[in-house]
């Protein structure tokens, strides 16, 4: 096979549940691997917060919507001779299939690299996949592909309940489920049929409770095959692997079982003819203890039986995990194989001595725990099943299971929640039975609670289906808890506790000390962690990888790095509010340090990221980002020799500033003092007052009457929030004494020691600024305007650069405020300021809402649209280079001839029970960028990429709050003139009728006749929903069903008229004629 000369790489688009940062990692590795081979890489991705879309990773970068139309235009322009379909997740793979099916690839002579169309279809289409496996004698669960609900129901007799339903070609198991009853089956099937792009679903024998084992397999064109690693899901079959706690390598499999599945993996990858990597999932007979309850027939057989569950013919979330767990760069090697290299030609970069054709040997244990969003969505359905719900994940490495598990729990960053945590609702009494131990995000803690209450481990295993091996390990942790509670704290027990992964904080709680006291005695007794290397070969060869994990052992392999160095604190797991943007910043910071001759050291716990690639920094510590881990690492590096950078790792890193400062550990960039001014409400108020910069008036209150006084003097609406964030509640906008009383009563009930903040809610234009300050000058890359007025979380708003509705004097004022704040704060590095503009009869007042002396979520976006390497400049400022020395001056950076628009992307279809109205609480999981030479074109692209665009004709369902009715009139007129049909709820329908437009009225009440609001959504009558809400009741029952139905049907649902306004302008304007060009051409 000849090597291609120019290769198109399709990225995975925005972060959604089921498709997270792992594809930035894989795409980045792939582009680099291809460029090493002298191949020109053309990359297309709509997600600006990715390293892969930066200059220097691919040769030609398009930040454009990921649609067949756009990709066809890219192909027309670039004439690549190859397309790499397997590194951009399910999105990239589906688009490659669509392009092939549309004949585009043939027409332009573009070859699919690595894995053929035929192979992709064989792996993805259930019926073909099953036939192939049956042909080669591999066991598959009984099942059948159906195209109707009636066919689905036949399976009740032919296979038997329970049954598992999986739609073809969907992400993260979207729309799948387990049917225990015939009614379940009917519901899940009809939904699955609807959302599957091919309108096919697979109905399968349910293997609940069986062990779920995965293998990562590679194959090259010469038919050399290897497995990189196997992984055992602690949660047995039934819980989506993305929602399972996973351990690598397998722990409960004998060599015979391991080799049986490994050999099957090789047979399958060969039969599929994959050239590259794939992931294969198996179900394996459970232990007799589990089988007793879950698989009674198997228990009798007495032999190990397996079924092949699924093959991902591409790099996946699991392969990212396997890469980080073993050190083997799967994406890099897969890319090389795709262009014809063989495994024995590719060097193993980790050892520098061996080749890619070997199988990693681990001498440690890896535990992955998913990060679920239920701290944000307390009302969401927490149950885990075949629909993935996690937004991200953490990984921890140690020499045995217990400490790896405990470190992973600490890495989740649920506050300071360790394995000791219990839900107060669980009480002190016995906690038994399946309801308590059902699979949800709290199960790990529930198991611990059960064992603490003397539940029999085998019983826990039976109830959960989790192999007893794991439950015994949990028991070991509980046993140590009991010892720490009763025995005197002496060196031996402390050593044993540390070896089991107990944090100083846990030990302190159990042994009745303060965490700092535990740390001090640990030092007295010389009990320090050591750091061991991840080297792919279990120390058989002398490797030079700078990739380490902590453990309590005797030999330390990570001697302090020589020379000037700084530690970049990472951002941990991807979660709502703290996404891939911060990993992007950390990576650039590490690179910038290297440019100024400093060694960069990264700490992070997230296996999905570029920052945790072993060659991103000079040294990687794969560790939890808590005080204990970070201080231990700094001590290992020599506390005086290494400073920390806290500005790039989001709230995770910034939260560490105070503890570092208290312990005299130096921080590079803005001092802890500056951070404290920005975060402490009173100090911040005084600070702005001193600078004579206005902020919305408000006060902290401790009682309902006090609150009503304040609110009445400010005038409604007011923004209320606890000064101390409580589980699951945060900001709300309230419009009346009643609403305020309700909020306050609840908030004070939960915490009466901290004030509730009541601020004037200014319903103006929200504006956001990122800036770099060196102490003398403040460089402002750009001013961004939010489409949605203040009150919608900035992370959920559409942001426009440059602000199109801002006057020159407004911009000047903003630049002036930013400069004064930066200098007065003594900031060194990045600064993000949120402001609100209230325009009244020609004059405008500008208020500062928030100052964050750190990198914000918009940094990657602003870097892309201005062409300024913002993180690079800021890092160099922190390292001591002034802006001037870097060739920059203060003030606003000159804008280019482009408009950039950042739009949020939500994963609501996957989170049942979660309300998707936009409010002060952030809900989006990812973002996309549309860029073009004019506003409408950029907007059209952003909306397209975010899935917010309405079809050019169709019908809309409107349900508009009384407060917004006046404002909606002009929009309704425009929508009518664009020939949209209307469905509406009573009040809204009356208004539309009074305007003289036709409208079909539907009832809001679901139990009062049909069609109701939800019917017209589910039956496809409407193509979009506009629903604004009154007041801030939680949950907002009003319209909740409408919004959920829209989320589940995946049709656009607008809860802000501001969003509707821009959507209408995009449709009515010339937005459809957008350009498709490399990013750098827009920047000219």
């Amino acid at each position, binding site marked *: 096979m000849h090597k291609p000369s120019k290769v198109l790489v399709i990225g995975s688009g925005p972060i959604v549940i089921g498709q997270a940062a792992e594809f930035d990692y894989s795409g980045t590795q792939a582009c680099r691997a291809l460029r090493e081979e002298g191949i020109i890489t053309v990359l297309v991705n709509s997600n600006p917060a990715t390293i892969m879309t930066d200059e220097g990773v691919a040769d030609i970068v398009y930040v454009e919507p990921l649609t067949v139309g756009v990709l066809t235009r890219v192909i027309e322009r670039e004439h690549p001779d190859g397309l790499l379909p397997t590194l951009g997740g399910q999105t990239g793979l589906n688009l490659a299939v669509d392009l092939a099916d549309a004949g585009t690839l043939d027409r332009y002579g573009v070859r699919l690299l690595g894995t053929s169309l035929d192979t992709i279809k064989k792996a993805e289409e259930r019926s073909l996949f099953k036939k192939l496996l049956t042909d080669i004698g591999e066991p598959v669960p009984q099942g059948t592909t159906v195209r109707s609900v009636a066919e689905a129901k036949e399976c009740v007799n032919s296979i038997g309940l329970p049954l598992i339903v999986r739609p073809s070609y969907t992400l993260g198991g979207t729309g799948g489920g387990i049917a225990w009853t015939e009614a379940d089956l009917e519901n899940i099937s009809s939904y699955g049929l609807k959302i599957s792009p091919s309108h096919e679903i697979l109905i399968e024998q349910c293997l609940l409770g069986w062990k779920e084992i995965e293998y990562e397999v590679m194959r090259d064109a010469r038919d050399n095959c290897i497995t990189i690693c196997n992984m055992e899901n602690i949660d047995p079959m039934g819980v989506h692997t993305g929602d399972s706690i996973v351990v690598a*390598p397998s722990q409960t499999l004998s060599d015979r079982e391991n080799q049986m599945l490994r050999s099957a993996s*090789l047979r399958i990858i060969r039969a599929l003819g994959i050239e590259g990597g794939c992931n294969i999932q198996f179900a394996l007979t459970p232990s007799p203890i589990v089988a007793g309850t879950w698989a009674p027939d198997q228990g009798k057989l007495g032999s190990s039986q397996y079924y092949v569950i699924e093959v991902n013919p591409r790099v996946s979330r699991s392969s990212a995990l396997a890469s980080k767990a073993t050190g083997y760069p799967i994406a890099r090697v897969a890319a090389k194989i795709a262009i014809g290299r063989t495994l024995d030609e590719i060097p193993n970069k980790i050892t520098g001595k061996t080749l890619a054709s*070997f199988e990693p040997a681990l001498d440690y*244990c890896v535990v992955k725990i998913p990060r679920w969003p239920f701290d944000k969505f307390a009302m969401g359905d927490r149950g885990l099943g075949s629909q993935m719900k996690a937004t991200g994940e953490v990984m921890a490495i140690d020499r*045995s299971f217990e400490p790896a598990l405990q470190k992973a729990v600490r890495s989740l960053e649920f506050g300071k929640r360790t394995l000791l945590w219990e839900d107060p609702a669980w009480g002190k009494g016995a906690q038994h039975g399946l309801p308590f131990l059902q699979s949800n995000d709290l199960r790990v803690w529930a198991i611990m609670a059960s064992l603490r209450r003397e539940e029999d481990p085998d019983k826990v295993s039976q109830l959960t289906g989790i192999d007893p091996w794991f439950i015994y390990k949990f028991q070991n942790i509980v046993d140590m808890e009991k010892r720490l509670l009763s025995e005197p704290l002496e060196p031996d027990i402390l050593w044993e506790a540390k070896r089991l992964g107990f944090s100083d904080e846990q030990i302190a709680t159990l042994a009745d000390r303060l965490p700092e006291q535990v740390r001090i005695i640990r030092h007295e007794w010389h009990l320090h962690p050591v750091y061991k290397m991840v080297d792919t070969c279990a120390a*058989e060869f002398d490797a030079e990888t700078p990739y380490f994990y902590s453990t309590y052992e005797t*030999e330390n392999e990570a001697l302090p790095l020589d020379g000037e160095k700084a530690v970049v604190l990472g951002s941990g797991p991807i979660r709502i509010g703290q996404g891939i943007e911060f990993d992007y910043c950390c990576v650039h910071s590490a690179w910038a340090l290297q440019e100024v001759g400093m060694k960069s050291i990264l700490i992070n716990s997230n296996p999905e990221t570029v920052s945790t690639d072993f060659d991103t920094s000079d040294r990687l510590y794969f560790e939890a980002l808590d005080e204990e881990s970070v201080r231990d690492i700094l001590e290992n590096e020599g506390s005086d020799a290494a400073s920390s950078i806290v500005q790039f790792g989001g709230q995770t890193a910034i939260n560490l500033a105070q503890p570092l400062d208290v312990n005299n550990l130096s921080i590079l960039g803005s001092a802890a003092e500056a951070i404290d001014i920005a975060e402490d409400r009173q100090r911040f108020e005084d600070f702005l007052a001193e600078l004579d910069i206005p902020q919305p008036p408000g006060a902290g209150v401790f009682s309902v009457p006090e609150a009503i006084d304040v609110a009445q003097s400010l005038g409604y609406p007011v923004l209320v929030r606890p000064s101390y964030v409580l589980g699951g509640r945060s900001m709300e906008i309230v419009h009346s004494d009643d609403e305020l009383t309700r909020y306050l009563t609840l908030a004070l009930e939960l915490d009466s020691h901290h004030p509730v903040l009541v601020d004037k809610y200014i319903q103006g234009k929200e504006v956001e600024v990122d800036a770099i300050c060196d102490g003398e000058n403040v460089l402002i890359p750009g001013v961004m305007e939010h489409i949605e007025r203040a009150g919608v979380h900035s992370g959920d708003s559409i942001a426009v650069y440059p602000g199109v509705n801002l006057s020159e004097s407004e911009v000047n004022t903003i630049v002036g405020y930013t400069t004064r704040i930066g200098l007065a704060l003594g900031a060194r590095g990045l600064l993000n300021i949120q402001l609100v503009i209230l325009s009244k009869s020609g004059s405008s007042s500008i208020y500062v809402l928030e100052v964050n002396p750190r990198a914000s979520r918009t940094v990657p976006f602003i870097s892309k649209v201005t062409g300024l390497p913002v993180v690079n400049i800021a890092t160099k400022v922190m390292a001591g280079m002034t802006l001037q020395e870097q060739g920059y001056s203060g003030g606003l950076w000159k804008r280019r001839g482009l408009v950039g628009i950042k739009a949020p992307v939500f994963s609501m279809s996957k989170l049942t029970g979660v309300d998707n109205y936009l409010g002060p609480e952030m809900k989006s999981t990812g973002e996309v960028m549309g860029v073009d030479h004019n506003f409408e074109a950029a907007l059209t692209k952003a909306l397209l990429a975010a899935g917010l665009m309405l079809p050019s004709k169709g019908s809309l369902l409107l349900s508009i709050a009384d407060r917004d009715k006046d404002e909606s009139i002009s929009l309704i007129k425009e929508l009518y003139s664009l020939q949209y049909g209307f469905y509406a709820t009573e009040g809204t329908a009356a208004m539309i009728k009074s305007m003289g437009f036709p409208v079909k009225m539907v009832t809001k009440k679901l139990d009062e006749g049909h069609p109701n609001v939800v019917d017209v959504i589910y039956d496809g009558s409407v193509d979009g929903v506009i629903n604004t809400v009154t007041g801030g009741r939680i949950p907002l029952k009003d319209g909740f069903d409408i919004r959920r139905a829209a989320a589940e049907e995946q049709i656009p649902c607008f809860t802000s008229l501001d969003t509707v306004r821009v959507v209408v302008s995009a449709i009515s304007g010339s937005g459809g004629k957008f350009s498709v060009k490399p990013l750098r051409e827009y920047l000219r």
Partner: protein
Amino acid sequence: MSKRATLILEDGTVYRGDSFGSERTTLGEVVFDTAMTGYQEMLTDPSFAGQILLFTYPMIGNYGISEADFESGHIQVRGIAVREYCHRPSNLHSVQTLDNYLRDSNIPGISGIDTRSLTRHIRSRGAMMGILSTEMRDEDALERLKACPRYSDTDLVYEVSTEQMYQWPAVGDRQTDASAGIKHVSYNIVVVDLGLKYNIVRILSRLGCRITVVPYTTSLNDILALHPDGVVLSPGPGNPSLLGDVVDVVKGLIGTKIPLMGICLGHLLIGKASGTEIFKLKFGHHGGNHPVRDLATNKVYITVQNHGYAIDDSTLQGGFEVSQINLNDGTVEGICHPDLPVISIQYHPEASPGPWDSSYLFDRFLAMVGKSTDA
């Protein structure tokens, strides 16, 4: 609280941990193996005779001991060293704990030590003798260690080879009972037991061979008297230089042109019989992830390896050629001869533990046997 145990190396390095298995003192060459599963197979592999086995995988004992995974009649290692011993195993096939099995076999183990540091030590200093004890003072132990016979000077094959000739299946091997679907080929294969792993004869038996296992001291004439269609020289422990008599027999076998398969130690003896030099590797190859390239096809196989000696390719003689090499260090993994029916490989196609990728070599050997019997 379990009893303490100490592992002392001949260079004086001391590791202290907890005792499991039998409480006593043992001596042997300390070697590490990087396989992540298969401790039961390794413990019972006669090639580990005379050695204290250090597992680089930190958690050992997880899935207990099964009836089906013995590679010989008893534990062959002198002792084992692990990071963490698993007290409560879980597996469908587990019939007892590793600790019990070690106790019943009178074999000691040490757990809780920094096995990675010990591995790195051996990697840089080379394999060396060690003493594992629950009862001796350090000085006494070191004294005894210094006085004990060295691994390379001990005829370990003598300790592990069968005393009597026998027909496979051996009594009590559960796996062979289950070997349904045997092809009706019925070749007569003689296996010279230098430290035989059961899985070699299980596979041959499954492929339809009638198997006679003979002691390593069996003479050429006695072997030929069995009218073998093919002869297998098994793997085994120790220094091939101590096996001069067997080398003479192998020379004779090569001369008869009866198809010959040498595995591991058997392969080294074929090398020696052809006049080739053997050398000791610094710390050997022990693991289930070694890439080997077949020079004829250019294909790469992941192989199971367990050897401390290798053929020096610069001294190959008698028309023998290198057929396979190790991609990690370039050492010889197989030799062949253009005119002789010989398959000679350094690694373990019988796996157990480890990847099953190389079992095709048995088919190739039987094809050779078939051709020779047809002729």
